[in-house]
C-alpha cells in the first residue's frame, strides 16, 4: 500500500512537472493536494503505531550494496504526518495564493516530499545522502532568483560534499552502510574529531544556523509560500534529520556538543535579534526560522532530544507562524517592509485571531517541552513572546505608514488561504495537551507586550539602511575566502604556467633546438673547407678507435 502511495505522489509530481507551468494551475494544484490528502487519509487508517518495513535491494555494484528501506513505525509516523501536512499546506496556498509557475512548484514540492520521506525512512547512509542531495537539487530548481540560487547551491553543495566525505571516511574504514552501525565507529574509527566536527558543520550549513544563515536570508526574493516551503519543509529540515540519524557519531568527539551548543544558542539569539531589527517581512520570517532551528538544535545540544511528536508539532507550529506572516503580506498587497505597515488590526481582525491561535499552539508546545528541558523551553517561550509580540504589534497596532493604496486594499485574505492554517492549528491543539493556566499567563504577557511595545525604540533601526542592507556574512566569506582564492589562482597561472612552463621550460627547449640548428647550418655551409673538416673528423674517429678501441 505504502509503495503505491509513494508512486501516487511520484506520479502526481511528474504530471505537475510535465504539464505547462501556468496552465490550469488551480486544477493541477488541487490534483496534487488531493494526492497528498489521500496519502494522509490512507496513512491515518493504519493508526499511530504501524510497523511497516520494506527493504528493496537497490544497488548491487562491487564495493557497494545498497538497500532502499521504507520504514514507518511509531518512531517516525508523526514526522511523516507533519511532512505531509506541511506539503499539503504549501500546495493549498499555492493553489489559491499568488505564485509563478504553480504547476512546476507543485511538482517540486511533491518530489521534495518524496525525497524527504526517503530521508526519514533511511536506514543506511547511502539512502540518506542521496535523499539529501536530491532535495538540494529540487530546492535549487524551485528557487527563482539568481542570487538566492547562487548562495543556496554553493553552501549546500559544499555541505553535501562534506557529508559525502564523512561517510566516505567511514566507508573506507570498513564501517557498514547501516546507520545503526555508526555507534560502533567510536571503537574502530580514526579521525573522530574530524568526522564529528565536519558532520556538525555540514548540518549547520544545511539548516542555516548562525554564520551559515546567509544562504536563507538571500531567499527573501522568493514568493512567500515558496520561502516557507524551503525554510521548513526542505533543506534545513534535511539537515536536522541528518543530525538525528547520525547523532551517535557526535558522541565520538568531545567537541561536538559544546560546538552545537554555541551554534544553536547563537542561532536562537541572532534569529531573535534579526526578527526584531530587520524591516523586510520575509527576512523576518527567515530569522524566525533561524530562531526555530536554533531552538531545535539546542535541544539536541543540551542532551534533551525532542520526541518525534514534539518536533513534528513544533515544526508545524513554526511553519504556521510563518504562514501568518505570509497572510499579512498578501493582505497588504505584497508590501515587504514592516515599517510601511501598521494599524492593520481593524482590517485584519480574523487574521489577528488566527495569529493568536497559532501562537497559542506554539506556546503550548513549548510549555509541553519544559518537561524535557525547562530552561530551553522557557527561554524559547520568552524569546518568541518578545519577538512575535513586537512584530505583530508593529504590523497590527503600530502607527500606520502604509500608503493609501495598500490601506485601501487591506482586507483579510480569502478563506481558502486562512482555513487550512486554522485547521492545521486546530490539529496541533488537538495533539498537544494545552495547559490552560500557563497558556493564559503567557498569552496575557504576549498581549501586554503587544499593546505596550516596549521595544518600540528599535523601530528606528528600520531606517538604518546600512543595517538593513548589509550582508556581513557574505562579505566576510567573499573577503576571506573567494577573493584570496581568485588572486592566488591568477598568481599561479602567471608564475607556474606562464613564467615557468612557457617562458622557461618550453623556451629553453625551443632555444636548444634552434641552437643546434644554427650550429648545423654553420657546419653545413656547402664550402669545400666544411667538407674537408667533416672528412678529417671521420678519419679522426676511425684513428681513435683504431688506436684505443681496435
Amino acid at each position, binding site marked *: 500500500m505504502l509503495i503505491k502511495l509513494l508512486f501516487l505522489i511520484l506520479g502526481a509530481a511528474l504530471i505537475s512537472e510535465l504539464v505547462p507551468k501556468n496552465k490550469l494551475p488551480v486544477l493541477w494544484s488541487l490534483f496534487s493536494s488531493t494526492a497528498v490528502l489521500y496519502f494522509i487519509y490512507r496513512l491515518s487508517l493504519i493508526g499511530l503505531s504501524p510497523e511497516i518495513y520494506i527493504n528493496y535491494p537497490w544497488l548491487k555494484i562491487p564495493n557497494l550494496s545498497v538497500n532502499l528501506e521504507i520504514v514507518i513505525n511509531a518512531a517516525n509516523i508523526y514526522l511523516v504526518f507533519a511532512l505531509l501536512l506541511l506539503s499539503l499546506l504549501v500546495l493549498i496556498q499555492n493553489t489559491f495564493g499568488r505564485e509563478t509557475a504553480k504547476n512546476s512548484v507543485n511538482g517540486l514540492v511533491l518530489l521534495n516530499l518524496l525525497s524527504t520521506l526517503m530521508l526519514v525512512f533511511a536506514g543506511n547512509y547511502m539512502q540518506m545522502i542521496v535523499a539529501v542531495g536530491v532535495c538540494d537539487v529540487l530546492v535549487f530548481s524551485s528557487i527563482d532568483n539568481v542570487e538566492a540560487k547562487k548562495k543556496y547551491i554553493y553552501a549546500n553543495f559544499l555541505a553535501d560534499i562534506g557529508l559525502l566525505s564523512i561517510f566516505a571516511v567511514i566507508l573506507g574504514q570498513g564501517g557498514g552502510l547501516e546507520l545503526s552501525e555508526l555507534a560502533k565507529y567510536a571503537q574502530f574509527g580514526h579521525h573522530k574529531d574530524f568526522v564529528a566536527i565536519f558532520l556538525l558543520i555540514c548540518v549547520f550549513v544545511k539548516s542555516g544556523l548562525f554564520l551559515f544563515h546567509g544562504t536563507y536570508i538571500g531567499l527573501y526574493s522568493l514568493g512567500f509560500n515558496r520561502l516557507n516551503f524551503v525554510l521548513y519543509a526542505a533543506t534545513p529540515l534535511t539537515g536536522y534529520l541528518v543530525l538525528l540519524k547520525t547523532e551517535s557519531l557526535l558522541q565520538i568527539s568531545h567537541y561536538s556538543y559544546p560546538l552545537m551548543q554555541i551554534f544553536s544558542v547563537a542561532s536562537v539569539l541572532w534569529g531573535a535579534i534579526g526578527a526584531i531589527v530587520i524591516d523586510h517581512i520575509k527576512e523576518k520570517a527567515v530569522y524566525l526560522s533561524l530562531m526555530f532551528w536554533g531552538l531545535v538544535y539546542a535541544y539536541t545540544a543540551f542532551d534533551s532530544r525532542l520526541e518525534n511528536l514534539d518536533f513534528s508539532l513544533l515544526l508545524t507550529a513554526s511553519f504556521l507562524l510563518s504562514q501568518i506572516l505570509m497572510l499579512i503580506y498578501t493582505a497588504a498587497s505584497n508590501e515587504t517592509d514592516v515599517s510601511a505597515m501598521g494599524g492593520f488590526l481593524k482590517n485584519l481582525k480574523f487574521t489577528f485571531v488566527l495569529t493568536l491561535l497559532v501562537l497559542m499552539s506554539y506556546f503550548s508546545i513549548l510549555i509541553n517541552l519544559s518537561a524535557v528541558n525547562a530552561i530551553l523551553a522557557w527561554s524559547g517561550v520568552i524569546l518568541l513572546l518578545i519577538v512575535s509580540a513586537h512584530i505583530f504589534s508593529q504590523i497590527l497596532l503600530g502607527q500606520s505608514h502604509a500608503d493609501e493604496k495598500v490601506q485601501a486594499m487591506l482586507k483579510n485574505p480569502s478563506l481558502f488561504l486562512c482555513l487550512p492554517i486554522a485547521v492545521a492549528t486546530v490539529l496541533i491543539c488537538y495533539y498537544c495537551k494545552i495547559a490552560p493556566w500557563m497558556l493564559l499567563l503567557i498569552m496575557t504577557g504576549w498581549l501586554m507586550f503587544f499593546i505596550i511595545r516596549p521595544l518600540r525604540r528599535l523601530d528606528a533601526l528600520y531606517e538604518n539602511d546600512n543595517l538593513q542592507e548589509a550582508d556581513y556574512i557574505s562579505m566576510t566569506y567573499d573577503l576571506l575566502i573567494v577573493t584570496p582564492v581568485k588572486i592566488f589562482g591568477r598568481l599561479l597561472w602567471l608564475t607556474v604556467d606562464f613564467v615557468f612552463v612557457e617562458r622557461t621550460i618550453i623556451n629553453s627547449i625551443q632555444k636548444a*633546438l634552434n641552437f*643546434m*640548428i644554427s650550429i*648545423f*647550418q654553420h657546419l*653545413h655551409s*656547402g664550402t*669545400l673547407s*666544411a*667538407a674537408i673538416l*667533416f*672528412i678529417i*673528423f*671521420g*678519419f679522426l*674517429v*676511425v684513428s681513435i*678507435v*683504431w688506436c684505443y*678501441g*681496435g
Partner: protein
Amino acid sequence: MLVEYIAIFPEAWLFFGIIIMCAAAWVNFSGTCKTFYAISKWSILPTIFLTAVFYDRNIAAIWENNDYTTFFKIIIYLFSLSWIALLNKRFQNREKQSFIYYVYVLISLLCYSIGLSSREFWLTALAFSLCQFLNVMLAKIDADEESLHRIRYYRIFVLFFCFLLWIGILILYYQVGSSNYSDIFTFLTTNNDFSFLLKLSFVLIMLFFLFAVGVAPFHFWFAGIISGCIFPVAGFLTIIPSLGYFPTMINLLVNVLAPFYEWFVPVMVIFGVLSIFIGAIGANSEENLHRLFAYAELYYIGVFLTAAADMQNQSLIGTLIYLLIYVFSFFGIYTVFSGCRNKGEYVSQLKDIRGLSTQRPFLSAAFLGLMISLIGMPPLLGFLGKLSVVNSLVAAHSYGLMAIISFSILILACAYLKVITVIYFEPRNINFDRVDKNVYIYIVINILLIAVTILNPKYLIHDVEMMLAAIL
C-alpha cells in the same frame, strides 16, 4: 662450363638494352623520348624476370646469385622501373636529356647488379666506382650554376674515395694474393694476426662504402647534390643507391671481412649515431623538400648502421626489414611529390605545398600516412621497421642505442610535423596541376602493399630471413 655464364644473362640483357639505346640515340635523337623510355622499360622488365629465373646460378668463384642478391636486385629493378615510368613525361621534348637520364640509370642498375653479385673485389670496386661517377653525371643533368659548383666538389670527393677504395683493394690483393672473396675470407680466418696494412685496407674499403651510402660525417655531399638536381634524379639517388651499397656492405662484412670487423663496430656506432642526429637536426633546418628528405634519409641510414653494427643475425633481420620499409615509404613520398606540380614544374620548396590537402586530399592523405609511417607510428608500416630494429637492439642488450634511436625520432618528427602542418593547416597559395593517373595507381599499390604487410607481416619477415640465410 659455358653454361655457368647463364648466371649473368640478366645483366647481359641489361647491357644489351644500353647498347640498343645508344644505337637508337645515334640513329636519331628527335622524337625518341618515348623510345628511350620504352627501351629502358623493356630492358628492365625482362631483367627482372631473368633475375628471378637464374636466382641461384653462379659462375665459379667470381659471380654468385643467391636469394639475397636476387632479392635486392629485383627490388632495385622494380623501384627503378616504377620511377622511370612515373616520370617519363618529365622528359617530353627533351630528347637528349632523356637519353642521358635513361642510359645512366640503366648503367647504374647494371653496376649495382654487378656489385651485388660479384665475388671479386676488383669487379665490385669497378662497378661501384662507376656508380659514383654516374651519380655525378646524373646530378649534372639540367643542373643550375650553383649546383654545378657543388657537383664539382662532389666529383673531387668521389675521386678521392674511389682512390681510397682501390688502394684498399690493392693492399688487400698484395697481402692476400687474391681479390676473390672466398680466398680473402679463408686467408683472414686462418691468419688471426692482422698486419697494419691489412687493417688499413679494410678501413679504406669501409670508408668508401660509408661515403657512398652517405653516412655522417661523409654525408656533406648528399643533401647538396639532391637539392640541386632535377626531380627524377633526386628520387633515383635517394632510393636506389642505398639498396645497392648497403646490402653489398653487409655481404662483405659478414662473408669476407668478418674477421676484421669486430674492432670497427664502435666506428659504425659512432657514425650511425652521428648520422641520426645530423639527419634529424638537418631535416628541421630545411625548407627545401628534397634536402629535408635527404637529411631524413641520413637519419634512417644512421639507424641501419647503428642497428646492424654487430652484424648478427637478429640485428641484420631487423635492419633489413627497416631498410625495405624505409625505401618503400620513401618511394611513396617521392611518388606523391611527382604528383605535386605547378605550371608543369615539380615543387621543391616547403612553401609550395601549402594547403595541398584542400586541392589534392588523396595525395595529402598518402603523404601524411607515409610520413607518419616513417616516424614509426603504429599501425603503419614504419612501426614494423622500428619494432624490428629496436627488438634486435634490446635482444643484444644495447639499451643505450635503443634509447638514442627511439628518442631521436622525436627530433625528426618535428620536421615531418612541419611538412604536415604546411600541407594540412595552412592556406593554399598556388594551384596544383592535374595529377597523372599513374601517380594515383602507384600510390594505391603502395597503400595496398602497406596494408597487406601490416596486417600480415609474416611474409615479409619470412622473406628477409630466407634471404639472409643465403649469406649467413
